[in-house]
């Protein structure tokens, strides 16, 4: 019996995919050989800085993406308004700081609370109507919402960029007998306080979210609904309520992220856009619905973005992200960490 050509065909396809990917990567690296050589050798500090900065911002990407992937995994909706809602959080925090003198990090309580409420309202009033409808309808609904929100912010706050400055941008502190001063320096790279706090805060919250999903009754209910809404309903879970809560949790994540990034990013109505795009890339890479995938993906993309930025100096740092995105899609459509709930 001749061996079946079909099986070798499938294997051949995978080989071709990897071969093409590595060839493309190889060509890109070759064309940038000089720059790479410089980065690895004399310019090493630049590379290390990029790695550090990338990791730090990656933490925030992880938090934002976890919210997005949670929404997708449970409600099966692409929330195109994710970035716009983050901008809402940022303007809220900004107003509290500029007008009421809040400490930037204290605003997180307000932004998270506000975004939880807004998220719940959006789900209940708008998204609920299109649950179960086609993908395009849901996408367009959240897109319309995003356009509305972003331009509302534009009308209310004008396009003038805003920024806040931490009064304790650099300083020092005695902790357990150790003298800690910031900005932090290690391996020749600098890590500013706000970025470091954002990273730590994001990971802490990500961890809390993860604990909530794994160890609480609510979390179990959410995961049940994600797996099988009808089955969950049969065992007595209030599925519509879970939808509302999950969406709110997702938007709560960006509320937190908003407060965390305000101290080091300039704020415009379009600031959330970049986070939106990046979150989508992360979620697709990590597997839609895969929370750990979003966590890892966020860090990976953050690093890719910064390293790509110093590698392809003449290009936008997002280009490296998109190239990775497209390559990853063709290598593993179900996401790098697999098991998508798409």
């Amino acid at each position, binding site marked *: 019996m001749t061996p079946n050509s079909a099986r070798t065909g499938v294997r051949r396809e995978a080989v071709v995919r990897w071969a093409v990917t590595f060839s493309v990567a190889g060509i890109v690296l070759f064309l940038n050989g000089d720059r790479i050589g410089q980065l690895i050798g004399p310019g090493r500090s630049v590379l290390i800085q990029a790695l550090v900065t990338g990791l730090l911002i990656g933490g925030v990407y992880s938090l934002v993406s976890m919210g997005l992937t949670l929404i997708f995994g449970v409600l099966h909706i692409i929330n195109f308004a994710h970035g716009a809602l983050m901008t809402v959080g940022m303007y809220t925090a900004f107003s509290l700081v500029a007008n009421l003198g809040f400490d930037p990090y204290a605003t997180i309580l307000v932004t998270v609370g506000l975004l939880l409420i807004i998220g719940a309202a959006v789900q209940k009033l708008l998204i609920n109507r299109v649950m179960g409808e086609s993908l395009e309808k849901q996408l367009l609904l959240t897109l319309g919402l995003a356009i509305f929100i972003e331009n509302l912010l534009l009308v209310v706050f004008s396009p003038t960029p805003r920024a806040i400055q931490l009064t304790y941008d650099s300083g020092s502190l005695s902790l357990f007998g150790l003298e800690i001063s910031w900005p932090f320096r290690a391996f020749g790279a600098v890590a500013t306080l706000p970025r470091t706090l954002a990273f730590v805060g994001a990971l802490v919250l990500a961890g809390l979210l993860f604990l909530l999903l794994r160890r609480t009754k609510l979390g179990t209910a959410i995961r049940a609904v994600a797996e099988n809404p009808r089955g969950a309903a049969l065992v007595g879970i209030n599925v519509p309520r879970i939808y509302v809560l999950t969406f709110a949790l997702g938007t709560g994540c960006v509320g937190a992220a908003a407060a965390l990034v305000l101290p080091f990013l300039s704020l415009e109505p379009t600031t959330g856009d970049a986070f939106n795009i990046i979150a989508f890339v992360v979620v697709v890479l990590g597997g839609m619905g895969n929370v750990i995938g979003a966590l890892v993906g966020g860090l990976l993309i953050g690093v890719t973005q910064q390293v790509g930025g110093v590698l392809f100096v003449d290009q936008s740092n997002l280009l490296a992200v*998109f190239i990775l995105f497209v390559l990853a*899609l063709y290598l593993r459509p179900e996401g790098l960490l697999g098991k998508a709930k798409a």
Partner: protein
Amino acid sequence: MTSATQLWRRVDRNVKILVVVAIGLALLPLWLQGASLEIGIRILLFAMLATAWNLMAGYAGLFSFGHAAYFGIGAYATAVLQVDYGWSPWLGMLVGMVLAGLFAVGTGYLSFRYRLKGAYFVLTTFAFAEMLRLIFLHWDFVNEAIGFRVPLNRDASWTDMQFPPDSPAYYYVVLGMLLAVLLVVISLMRSRSGYYIIAVRDNEDAAAALGVNPMRYKLYAVGLSGAMTAMGGTFYFQYIFFIDPSLAFGPGVSIQILLPAIIGGMGTMWGPLIGAFLLVPLGEWTSGLVRNPPDVLSFLDGRAGLDLMIFGAVLVAIIMFLPKGVYGSVTHAVAVRQQRRRRDPVASVSGTSDE
């Protein structure tokens, strides 16, 4: 009965509508001057782009959030060839159409081959448009962020696609493009390829089991859609005399292309045109509100973003209350009434399907 009447009766319904629309639109400039002519041109341009998008997204069921890629390729192909090499924009348009078609087929092939579906596919189309934007933004061959300007030429003629500012010629050029695109889409959807495209959309497995090659027909729709969209890009460059990576490849472009089709009715022939007729004047009106607000709304003075705010709200409302779009909902209501009549034993028996 004259043979002309017999002939007319046999003609496809959409073609009849096309003839009426063509005549109506051709006569419109007699009443339009200046600013309203500009609005008319924009309506026709977006109707054309939306119709091209609708072929891929509505009829073939492949929702694209990155049509700006094809639009931009069309615009830049013309720009480079005209500005740097002195080619006629008509030739540039043809080159742009071919390049956009190839890009569409290439990216489409990769996406279909690796079975990217649903959300993954949509995001991939978006990613490709963004990639082009970022690449062009930093590419000196296309002047990076500066873009291109159409060289002003006082002796310009039809070969240069450049006319005096108030000339209705621009209107007729874009009208010609719109009618051509409509004719192409109508003929395609009438033909067996059209049936295959819809079959693949409705159920790819069943279509394949009936001998229809899904990849071929999806690529057919995608390539054609991309090429026709590129035509619009060429026109746009000639009309506003300027192009840069944002105007060519930005997400706003993709959104503006798909909105008229959604609002008018995805997957219907006339939805995109109707959507354009609704959305463009609405956009103009809200921009006007912002520029010269009545006293009641004086706080709006000079504030950017109001028009898009209303867009966003309208879009949300349409999705929630008119899921089939305006035209789609109307035809659906009519069809439902027809069905009810059909179930009445008194009514006539067989119906020919008309789409």
